[in-house]
């Protein structure tokens, strides 16, 4: 019986009761930052809106910067997705372009905000992606512009290719609201 005790005791104490330091995983897939750069097609000051949440889900609240756009103006829109928790800073744009069939952005202006977005880039099946786009503003107004990125959407669903998210399905990778004013 004693032998058994010793065996047991040694077994337990061979294992330290202090857990070793974990290896911190490299969070390659994380998207911390989305930058929406808008350059007027006929010259003028460009506008940059952004959403930044460096510590990922939970923790600190994200920093969101909206934008003030000129009325009745067409802008070249360019979306940049970054993982700023990685060093060097990693761009998610290349993942999206590589898997272009499995990604699509959707843009929705809240009621009252007079703004529309047109796709300028297309996937291998000639369906829209949305990293490059044209933003056209109308009369002065204000509201929210919601930018959504869907992973594995049904791109052939009714209205999806024209930017209607209703039948897109898929999994949401990004859903951020920007406060927009049109002056």
């Amino acid at each position, binding site marked *: 019986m004693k032998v058994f005790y010793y065996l047991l005791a040694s077994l337990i104490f061979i*294992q330290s*009761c202090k857990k*070793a330091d974990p290896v*911190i995983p490299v969070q390659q897939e994380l998207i911390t930052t989305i930058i929406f750069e808008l350059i007027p097609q006929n010259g003028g000051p460009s506008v940059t809106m952004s959403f930044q949440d460096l510590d990922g889900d939970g923790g600190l609240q994200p920093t969101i910067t909206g934008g003030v756009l000129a009325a009745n103006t067409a802008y070249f829109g360019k979306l940049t997705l970054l993982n700023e928790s990685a060093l060097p800073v990693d761009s998610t744009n290349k993942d999206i372009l590589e898997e272009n069939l499995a990604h699509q952005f959707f843009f929705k202006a809240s009621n009252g905000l007079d703004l529309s977005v047109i796709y300028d880039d297309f996937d291998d099946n000639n369906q829209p992606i949305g990293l490059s786009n044209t933003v056209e503003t109308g009369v002065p107004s204000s509201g929210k512009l919601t930018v*959504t990125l869907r992973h594995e959407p049904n791109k052939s669903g009714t209205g999806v290719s024209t930017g209607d998210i209703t039948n897109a399905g898929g999994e949401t990778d990004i859903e951020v609201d920007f406060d927009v004013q049109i002056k």
Partner: protein
Amino acid sequence: MREEKRILKSTLMCKSNKIFLTLFLIFLSCSKLFAQECNLTLKGQVMDESTNTPLSFATIFLENKEKGFSADENGVFEINKLCADSTHLRISHISCETQTEYLVIKRDTTVVFFLHHHEELMNEVIVHGDKGEVSTQTSVTIDHDLIQKSSNKNLADILENIAGVSALRTGSGISKPIVDGMYGNRIAILNNGIAQAGQQWGNDHAPEIDPFVADHISVVKGVSALAYNGNSLGAIILVEPDDIKKEPHLHGNINYIFQSNGLGNTLNGSVQQDKKLLSWRFTGTLKGIGDLRAPDYFLTNTGKKEADFAAQFERKINTQWKAKIFLSSFNTRLGILKGSQIGNLTDLNQAFTRSEPFYTEPNFTYKIESPAQQVNHQLVKLTADYNYSKESKLEFTYSGQLNARKEFDVRRGGRSNIPALSLNQYTHFGDVANNYTFKNGGFLKSGIQVNYVNNTNNPETGILPLIPDYIGLKSSVYSFYQLDNNKFFYEAGARYDHQYLNVVEISRTLANTIDRFTHNFNNYSFSSGIKYQNKYLKWSLNAGYALRSPEINELYSFGLHQGVSSLEIGNNQLQTEKSLKITTGIDLTFNNKLFVQFLGYIQEINDYIFLRPQLEPQLTIRGAFPVFIYDQTKAGIEGIDLLVSLEPVKKFRLIGKMALLKGENKSDNIPLVYMPPANFTLSGNLALADLGILKSNSINLNMKTVAKQRNLLPDQDFLATPAGYTILNFNYDSQFSLKGKLVKMSLKCENLLNKNYRDYLDRQRYYADAMGINFSLWLNYKF
């Protein structure tokens, strides 16, 4: 010539430990052997194990003569003109489990066989065989045939046959048991006496046990539960293989189950032999099930692949020492409904409105893609029993477990093959227990236990882990005393656990620092009970006070749970839960015609740990998520379980089961979540006459009704609780002889009317209907 009488008592439960406990060989006289004359007589009687009444017209089949004999209406049989020989006997009776026995006939012999009649009347002493495993509190057991018949399913699905047990599901493939409102961390599951170690904290983590290994599965409540390691506030579920049968020949079993829904194939085989040097048994199981189907569509990506293996060795070293080794390996890959992979609340709300889940494919496939789980669980158990005196026995146990769990999500950038969660857990457990039987029949069991857990996240995921790395060390002592005093049975016991946790957490701050925490918890449990028993009535009363320390997920989880779209945050300030539970049980038996079992319980839990929804959602790049933080409250759970078994006319039996339960968060005056709604089962079983070669025929029609869970506020769930439902199941059982060997079969149809329904306790209900009609065929060949 003088005659030798031999009385052999045997049960029909395929449990050799029981058989040999109840096996009495009484040599009344001796005689000289005149074997060559072939004029020996085998006489005997077939009796009902639970009621001690004769079983009329039972059949006794002698394998060496390939001939069957029938008993008379008093279960008495006499077979003459036998030669001295050894033979296997098969004893069968309508609605009984057929029993095989090995008999050496050298002289005129008299035998009494005790057959197991029907499961509701199963005698605890016979099931558990041993003192210290019987308790004052009602414990319910599922027997061998039912386990084998339904082992294409999960353990929790099989347990649902017991009144008061429900299953918490993630689709049809993943389920864990809920007993009297307790689940997850609050109940312990013991595989062959060893607390199943694994990441049991997740509601989508099913216990990694192959039910085929079990001879019987029981739900044990009461004092004897104190002997088991496990942080339990409620019941203990025992999955137990039986001892290897004392049979010198090689014997085995082959089971095959086909299921039409999911075109599933389950194959299981086991072989065993009792040799002087070593008794051994090997069991192996293979399962392959494809996409299941709801009545209107395929449940895409709900297939399952499983390969399990177990080995058991027993050796009686001398009259004092006995050693056993048990090894098991459980390996599975499970698909999770593709349409339940969602990113945020918008997706979830959209999923609710769909008539069929997103990503539903029009065709069936066996392929399993992300989201999926891959689980490997290895167990080794060594036990040695030392009978150092007539009254005392020491039991030494060591067990080691290794649990590797990987969960795969649909990920971006070709990462779907990299797990999103990858955990390795190993456990060492040691137990020394002393059994002592007093002169007055009292029984004292005392023991000490040490349990070491080491849980490590694999950084391959590229995701900050949901559960931190940790080491847990638990040291325990326990003791309980039982006294069987004629009609009364008393018991009382106590247990103390010291739980130490050493946790290393990766902080969620920008710099990702490593933070260290230690916890020390002291858990005390006390339990006592009394039972009165006579021919018609069994009444028991049991009271228990138990403490449960918070588990790692309750203290430290941080992250999004896939498929539920909420942020779950641990709370490392949590205190131990304190539970007081009073249970009373009444069993009434009338003449084997009527059997009533009632169980009522009231449980008060102080500092009940639960997920409290927060007012402010958390804003993330994927949108806003509801936040749940672990918190404590005063909770109360009360309920009743009822079983009525009635034989109104011969060969026909009606069985009704009911479970009612209410759980309240008493501090906030709101209901508890995930409490099983009221459920009822009514089944009729009709034994039929033999049809040609088909013997022991019976049909069973079963109706299961689950009511809507009304005891929940609308803001406690993402969606209103689903409507109640009723489903019908049909079963036909039979057996026949194939070249002198017994083949059992069962044809089953579940959800006979192919009804669309969703179950409150199934987390897949947000996305899809439950499984539709399913035919299955079970074949069992014994050799």
